[in-house]
């Protein structure tokens, strides 16, 4: 029983990290209606940037975010302008291919620069823990969780308390209408892509401290992130957060109660059942344009 409880706590703490990574992905979908298959690779890029920065400057991995988040923001902005914006026809399908190509390219470049060996971000607290009853909670998961929470709160504030956030939300609701009322949809898209990348950088740090990674790690990441945002409802931030928690908690509990080999199976069953009942996902808006 305690084990189930521990697994649930662990699931919630690690779920926060996935929530953060998925929030960027779902934001990008919401604004641009494209699925960024390269998101996993960009998280890995964020982890490598933090790795390099913490090595070179001898600073704490979390502190590197001061550098990596702005850098990733600019990178995301640039990627959107150069690769996504030119797509005029078949945007949805072509953007999948373009972002997949970006992922492959990043994997290649990271492999060239950092090699294929697994690396992991180091910090004094990555093995330290404090006890709660019989169970010990690890600092790094708590720090990661708090960071994710903070960034998600900032994200929500930007979206719901600023004028720019309002134009992002307007674009998410209806691209054409947003254009009609004078919103520069292209600029909003690029900024949203940048914000998505900045959150990927933050997610990358926590991912990089808790997991050994190499340039190929993005394949596993992206398949998990995609299922999260589909379960939550494409384009819904709230959905992404809830779905990430559902995924990690269900997997961790299955893992300790039944067996690790069935952990993702159980999650996929949840996913399919939810989609059959609500094809738009937990918090998604049913998109049926023009009827």
């Amino acid at each position: 029983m305690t084990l189930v409880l521990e697994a649930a706590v662990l699931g919630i703490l690690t779920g926060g990290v996935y929530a953060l990574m998925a929030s960027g992905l779902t934001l990008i979908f919401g604004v641009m209606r494209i699925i960024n298959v390269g998101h996993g690779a960009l998280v890995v890029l964020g982890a490598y940037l933090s790795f390099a920065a913490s090595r070179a400057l001898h600073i704490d991995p979390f502190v590197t975010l001061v550098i990596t988040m702005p850098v990733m923001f600019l990178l995301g902005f640039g990627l959107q302008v150069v690769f996504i914006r030119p797509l005029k026809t078949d945007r949805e399908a072509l953007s999948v291919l373009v972002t997949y190509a970006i992922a492959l390219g990043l994997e290649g470049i990271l492999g060239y620069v950092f090699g294929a060996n697994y690396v992991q971000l180091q910090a004094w607290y990555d093995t330290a823990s404090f006890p709660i009853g019989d169970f010990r909670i690890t600092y790094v998961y708590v720090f990661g969780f708090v960071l994710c929470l903070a960034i998600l709160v900032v994200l929500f504030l930007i979206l719901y308390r600023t004028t720019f956030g309002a134009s992002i939300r307007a674009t998410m609701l209806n691209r054409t209408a947003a254009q009609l009322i004078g919103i520069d949809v292209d600029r909003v898209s690029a900024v949203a892509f940048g914000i998505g990348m900045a959150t990927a950088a933050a997610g990358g740090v926590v991912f990089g401290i808790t997991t050994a990674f190499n340039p190929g790690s993005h394949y596993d990441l992206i398949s998990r992130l995609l299922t999260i945002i589909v379960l939550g409802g494409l384009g819904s931030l709230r959905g992404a957060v809830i779905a990430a928690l559902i995924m990690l908690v269900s997997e961790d509990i299955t893992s300790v109660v039944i067996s690790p080999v069935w952990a993702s199976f159980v999650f996929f069953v949840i996913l399919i059942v939810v989609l059959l009942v609500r094809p738009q996902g937990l918090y998604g808006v049913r998109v049926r344009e023009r009827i």
Partner: protein
Amino acid sequence: MRTSLRGALLSVLAMVIAACGSTAPTAPAAPITIGVSVSQSGDFSGDGKALVQGYDLWAQDENAKGGLLGHKITMKYVDDTSSTQQVVSNYEGLITRDKVALVFGPFSSLLTIPASTVVARYGYAFPEPAGGGPHVFDRGLTNIFFVQPAAVEDNLVSYTKWLTGLSADQRPTSVAYATQDDPFTQPQVDKAKSLLEAAGIKTAYYRVYPAETTDFTPIALNVVHSQADAVILGTQLPDAVAFAKTFIQQHYNPKTLIETTGPDQGADFSNKLGTNTEGIMVPAGWTANAKAYGNDKFVSEFIAKYGGTAADISADAAEAYSVGQVVDEAATKANSIENAKLISSLHSGTYQTIQGPMAFDSSGKPQGGVGVYIEQWQNGAAIFVYPSSVAAAQPEYPKKPWS
């Protein structure tokens, strides 16, 4: 009718192959190319790099002493992107398009198995450093030679011997097992489990987890909860590190901890765990400190060529180097580099490598009871601790608390 047609076809093929084979050695000094498919991208790219280092170093040594039976060697590497489809195409291409004289094996059983049937089709010998899963040997092929001291499933046998050899009061009473669902790790853990259960040591926990798992913590928590005296893990590097970290976080210190891969990878392992590597064990056929045939030379040359320290040398590189050593001795013995002759000579006799002496049975499994040893991290380096014939130090038991 049909069979006779096929028979005729096969005999024609055999002649063609023989003809191809005989062209190479007619001119004794003709340079040759040895082809290898290695993973330079994808899941196995880290190991692929180590194989290249080992093969290159061997080729350099051979050429320095005049070549393989006088043939100067060029290595040709092609990337299999860690995919079975590409590895099949690659060996097909190496043998028929590039007409390489010899081929060496790729990384992992996963790729070795599909590759081995292609190589067998052309009558080439297939000495390979990293494909030791049970299915490699059960397909009826006679050209495979697995150049490691024991078939993979026997990797943990000496560890179980050591455990069962401990005095009754010291012996662990329970063991927790967890392993990746992988043809390399699972067979060894399963064999260790059956041996230890037969010796009366109870199993506190046993789990197989998918190879794609990225979050190992729940499984590690289960191991922690079992509070077993001994922990046996079928891991690669990332999970080897993740399990150890969770144990440290949860202040769980088993009396002994062994992981199938990870602790043997030198600095790649220790720079993630710091001083907490102390006491962790790994089955190893090779160590930089071993006094096996040519090992000192290998280690010093390796450091000269690639930098780093002895602890940084991956066992993969040593295994690749051994492949070359075995082929060199077999060629000398057969006085030929024809594949057919190499194959028949490799099926008899004992070969000296930096991993120790080894012989091969008809399916290519390593023979001779040489076995895999146990390595343990002590004072910041992994050293042989068992059996005593090769040990550089006593095994530390029970292992010290985490720092």
